[in-house]
């Protein structure tokens, strides 16, 4: 694609190159334009693949705590990876999604155990044993009264946040 060196090319310095031939310039311009188009088309088509709206089911759900639930006992929301606890200070919800690789942790004597890679968490979600890098998430809870609460799995709150029943 480059032109043949002409007779006087030898005397020219590297900093004073021979002007590019128009044909070479147009050819290179076309090549780079084609490559650029291809690159942008590829990046553009990634926009289609990346979802604009997440089709997962609603993150908010309603749950009623049974009267018989003792203080500090974990209550697993039916069908949800969430545990609710009622103690003297109020009610809080902790996500049961392991912060390591997304398995659902199960209640144990010490708090929660992850079945996939052996992480252990305390009852308040703090990591006791690796490989989980972070404590379990605390979730936003709103009280509807009468022992019924709305939990939002999509909204995290600082650990220790409780809501009065």
């Amino acid at each position, binding site marked *: 694609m480059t032109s043949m060196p002409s007779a006087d090319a030898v005397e020219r310095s590297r900093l004073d190159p021979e002007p590019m031939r128009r044909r070479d310039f147009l050819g290179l311009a076309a090549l780079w334009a084609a490559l650029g188009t291809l690159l942008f088309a590829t990046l553009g088509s990634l926009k289609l693949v*990346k979802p604009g709206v997440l*089709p*997962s089911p609603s993150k908010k759900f309603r749950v009623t705590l049974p009267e018989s639930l003792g203080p500090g006992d974990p209550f697993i929301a039916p069908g949800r990876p969430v545990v609710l606890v009622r103690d003297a200070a109020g009610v809080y919800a902790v996500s049961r999604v392991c912060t*390591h*690789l997304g398995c659902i942790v199960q209640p144990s004597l010490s708090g929660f155990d992850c*079945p996939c890679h052996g992480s252990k968490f305390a009852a308040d979600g703090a990591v006791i044993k690796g*490989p989980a890098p972070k404590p379990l998430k605390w979730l936003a809870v709103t009280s509807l009264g009468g022992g019924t609460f709305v939990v939002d799995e999509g909204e995290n709150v600082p650990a220790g946040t409780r809501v009065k029943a």
Partner: protein
Amino acid sequence: MTTPGQVAAPALRRFADNLRATPRRLRETMFRTGRPDTDRGRSTFVFGNVFLHLHPARVHRWSLRPTFTMGLGIFTLTAFLVATVTGILLMVYYKPSTALAYDSIKDIHFVVPTGRFIRNIHRWSANLMVVGVLLHMGRVFYTGAYRAPREFNWVVGMALLAITLGLSFTGYLLPWDQLAYWAVTIGANIAQSPREVTDALGITAWFDAGGFQKELLLGSDQVGQEALIRFYLLHVMVLPLALVMLLAVHFWRVRKDGGLVRPVDAEARLGPIPAGTYPVFTEAPQKTWSLAALVKGKTPAVGRGPEGTLPSMPHLMYAEMAVFMLACLACVVLSLLSDAPLKELANPAVPENPAKAPWYFLGLQELVSFSAFTGGIGIPTIVLLGLGLIPFLDREEQGTGLWFGGPGGGRLVALSAAFGLAAVVGIEAFAIRFGWIREWWLAAPQLLITAVNPGTVLTAAYGAWSLWAVRRYQSTRAGALALFTCFIVGFVVLTIIGVHFRGPNWQFYWVPSEWPGH
């Protein structure tokens, strides 16, 4: 020119003759050459056939020795072909929808005529393909076949390895049972695990590569219908197409890079062609030509017969056919012996315990159980990059074409295997017995664990061993031999630990019968 009156009868006869000759003519036009019973016939048999013409007309005896290639490339190709055929058959009944997928697999397994057998063959051929790819890589490495001019084909081979694993992984989700659901949940969260680092640095809000990867893979933030259809698309369309295209490049490069590798003194090592060999070239050409400017490889000497080579038809063809039949046999026998598993319907609320990925990912799962990012992305990337760079870092020539060829040779490989074994067993035993940083120091910063965990310690030990080998033998090939052997041993041991010694909650058990009841 003839007049119409004269032509009438002969034309009809000609028509009848043509009709009678049609089967013969069809055969002759399809196969332009006759029986391959002369040198010329054997050659045209190969290059006159579109399916065979990737083969050379003559093949060196070194390449035909069963102990040299062990037929692993053809074995892997056969496994892929079998998986393709059975996969198409399974697609007849399979329905990629979360509501129907599990039932359709159940139908295939219990109702569809021969369905269980075909599904078993599909599963076993996929497994054999993974085994074949890994063994083939080992063969190419240990015979030094990645060296000039074959460097690029080694890189293509790496891509084929990655696609093969991708095919297996995407196929794992399709039955939509507990095994599938939780293995893919873990896989998708490994894709998200760069967050372990970005979270620790506090930059996830601006740069969330992990979240992007997971969303691209699942089309959602959890495994659901979107993920199933994406995995289905990847499994039946995107990855097979990519694989076939790269396979074409891979095979074509084998020819263009001068056929299979062999030592410079292959002919001296082999000696003269044994007396019983048939057929050999009866009329050895007095001259050979090659397009020296266009075709790579050394020009055969003019005036010398092609020593050491035999006609591809029948020697190579029959050898390939034997491997092909053996691979098919292996698929069928294994399918008769062992059924493909199908657990309960996927349940997003209760993980399988233990949740295990396919066996070839369990080595990774073992590493992941120390740090998600290091084990799932960091170390695999280092290993793939390291493997890809081998031909560019080792450019020596000694030992090319010989098993364990190069400085150190078989002794270095044995030593490295012993070192690799000791290192991986020692580190694993330590971590299982004493735990790791988080157990000793609860508040340890995550970045410390990401950087220093049994996986990285093992990688560092292997790297140090390889550097020792480079210095000891003053050879990059020795370093490559040491490192590759260590990693193979590490991979095998971690896989065995993941498959056999890990039970519920990923705890260590000597035998599965010790697992607590469940």
